[in-house]
């Protein structure tokens, strides 16, 4: 399997995230090998690949859940490999989860407000005494939470703010995960299958949301997605993984038609196999 020549980040734009020869092994199992990946400022990059290709693992390495075996992760100019999750999040990388991981028994607005912990400074004593800094921060956090929730229009509007997160519909939980990630005020947003389990109308909506996230909030986005309509609709660039190896990179059309990608998804054509033998 030979990778396509690496497409450089669009000219003139700063690279936000760079994975440099990144490898990760679990015991003897190679989950990622020598992976190179760049995301430029305000760029939307999709990661595709069959189940078990290592897509979510890439996210987990970037966000500090796993420590890479070798190679480096750079965010801006800084190396973030091996730093704890909450530090990476505070630096400006936010994520959503493929299996929803909301704070189920907290209200919708508290879910969002909790994500501002790293950007606020009031000590417990200040909070108890409601000193000026605590009150100002609380006001700002509340305003920020209402703002990111209003990003989804009426979907997560007013009356829902005080409902527990578990009472939301599935699609609204996915939206709430995105809102919660936005509350950390990220520069880079990692979306892990944002359209999973959504109906066609909702999938269409999420495609628009991803575009708006970039246009209105100016974040770079790395998105894992299986729905090819979404991938085709949002991506500036597509990267295909299989068995932890990058097998193709480029525009959606180039990657979707790439023989290695077709093979990874569909297997090899029987006649072709017969010819080789």
């Amino acid at each position, binding site marked *: 399997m030979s990778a396509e020549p690496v497409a450089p980040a669009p000219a003139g734009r700063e690279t936000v995230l760079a994975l440099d020869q990144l490898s990760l092994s679990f015991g003897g199992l190679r989950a990622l090998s020598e992976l190179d990946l760049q995301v430029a400022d305000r760029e939307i990059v999709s990661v595709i690949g069959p189940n078990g290709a290592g897509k979510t693992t890439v996210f987990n390495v970037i*966000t*500090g*859940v796993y420590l890479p075996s070798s190679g480096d992760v750079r965010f801006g100019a800084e190396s973030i490999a091996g730093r*704890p*999750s*909450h530090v990476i*999040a*505070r630096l400006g990388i*936010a*994520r959503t*989860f493929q*299996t*929803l*991981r*909301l*704070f*189920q*028994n*907290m209200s919708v607005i*508290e879910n969002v*407000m*909790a*994500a*501002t*912990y*790293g*950007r*606020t400074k*009031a000590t*417990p004593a200040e*909070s*108890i005494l*409601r000193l000026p800094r*605590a009150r100002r*921060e*609380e006001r700002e*956090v509340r305003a920020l939470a209402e703002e990111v929730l209003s990003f989804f*229009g*009426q979907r997560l509007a007013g*009356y*829902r703010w005080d*409902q*527990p997160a*578990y*009472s939301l*519909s599935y699609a609204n939980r996915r939206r709430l995960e995105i809102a*919660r*990630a936005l*509350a*950390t005020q990220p520069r880079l947003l990692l979306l892990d299958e944002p359209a999973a389990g959504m*109906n*066609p*109308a*909702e999938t269409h*909506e999420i495609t628009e949301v991803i575009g708006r996230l970039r246009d209105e909030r100016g974040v770079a986005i790395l998105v894992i997605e299986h729905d090819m309509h979404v991938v085709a609709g949002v991506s500036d660039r597509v990267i295909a993984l299989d068995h932890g190896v990058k097998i193709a990179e480029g525009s959606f059309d180039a990657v979707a038609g790439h023989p290695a990608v077709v093979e990874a998804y569909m297997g090899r054509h029987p006649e072709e196999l017969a010819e080789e033998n």
Partner: protein
Amino acid sequence: MSVYPQGPLGPQEPPDILENPPGSRGPRLGADEWVARQEGRREYLPSWLGEAQRVFERIGWWPRLAVAGLAGALLPSLGLGGFQLQVGIDALVIALLAVGLNIVVGWAGLLDLGYVAFFGFGAYGYALLSSGQIGSAGIHLPAIVSLPVMVIAAAILGLAVGLPSRRLIGDYLAIVTLFFGEAFVEFTNNVAPAKLGGPNGITGIDPIRSFGIQLTTNAGYYYLLVIVLVITMAVLRLLDTSRTGRAWRAVREDPLAAAAMTIPVNRVKLLAFACGAMVAALAGTIFAAQQTSVFPTDFDTPILILVYAALILGGSGSIAGAATGALVVMVIYDGLLRNATDAGFLFYGLILLTLLARLRPWRRLAAVLAATVALGFAAHAIAAAISNSAVAAGPGSGWLARHWVIVPANPQTPGNWGFVILVCMLIALVQVSTRWRTILMVPTIYLAAFVWETRLVVEPSITRQLLIGAILIVMMIARPQGLFGQRRVEAAL
């Protein structure tokens, strides 16, 4: 109006927010307007109870707390005797402990089984700092100094215990902290007997004394505890609605997601440990001053179980719940069973209430009650005819024991057998069909009365454990979130 104006099989437009018909009032109708209007669908209790419920919900948290505190402060003036006042003090100490445990268990979700050690640490620390125990003359610090010193020391101890256990979760944390709690009891029992007194504990502890005021009466400690409890609850409420409280609950719900949302999970857990330890130590210092003595057994597992029972009964995660749960548990545990007649009213009253509430139709209820009463008189008469000693209830026994329940002269052995058979019958009762259950209920109730009169009423120490257990079982079935708890769902993972 139709939710799908284009018909259910029409074009797949998302059912977004729909406009209300012109002229209508109320909230805007949305796709899931049913959820939006849940307030209107809430069911309230009938009549004035429902009104009270509405008023209660409308007023803020601090007027509620103030009213509860005032009510608590006015109780002694209703003429509570020395014994009732002592029960009240014990209940308030446990309430303080439960409110502190709620930080660790209810909010941060850390199963801390060594919690009582911090209570003991506060008590022993106060005992050393404000008594004649150390040196020839003792230290005798005033409470205004020794209280804050012990609270801060407990916070540091909390951090020290939390540091090695911060990466432990669930069962592992529970076992490690349980070891810590037991280690504290062993420590006080065996280390430096000259200072800590070994099993004999420390006696002659100073009462709380500051600014020329000295608290020596139980009433004084009662008021002090009411004030301290109310302030602690207010402080914790303010903390709960701050970034710290949100971080604790986020860590409880999903530590991985919390870390991905900028929350330093380990630091937040340590903070919870330290805050819980501070509240426990505060309770310990007041406890030591009120008792004027401390013993290692005061800080052993039974107290831990009581505090946990209080927290679970009241509703883990709720401040008001923790306090209320403690009051309920301690009044049942300490107050009611001291007196056999009171306890009897409670026992028979509960059985009668349960039957009234659960047995339908009323013909079945009447039949069961009549049959039980008849069975009792018949059995008593037959037993009396056979042997006089079979119904020779001890002196001072109630009317029931003399006329209805068979209480033999030597009740211990038959009582024990009766207990075993009663447990078997209760198990059978939940297994059999409705018809047989109705029939079996009659002898079961009678047997329960028999066991009560022969064994339980004379051994309150066992009975109260059973009673608390039974209440917790009933609570779990009827209201698993506890008295004031919020319904919780477990994370899907």
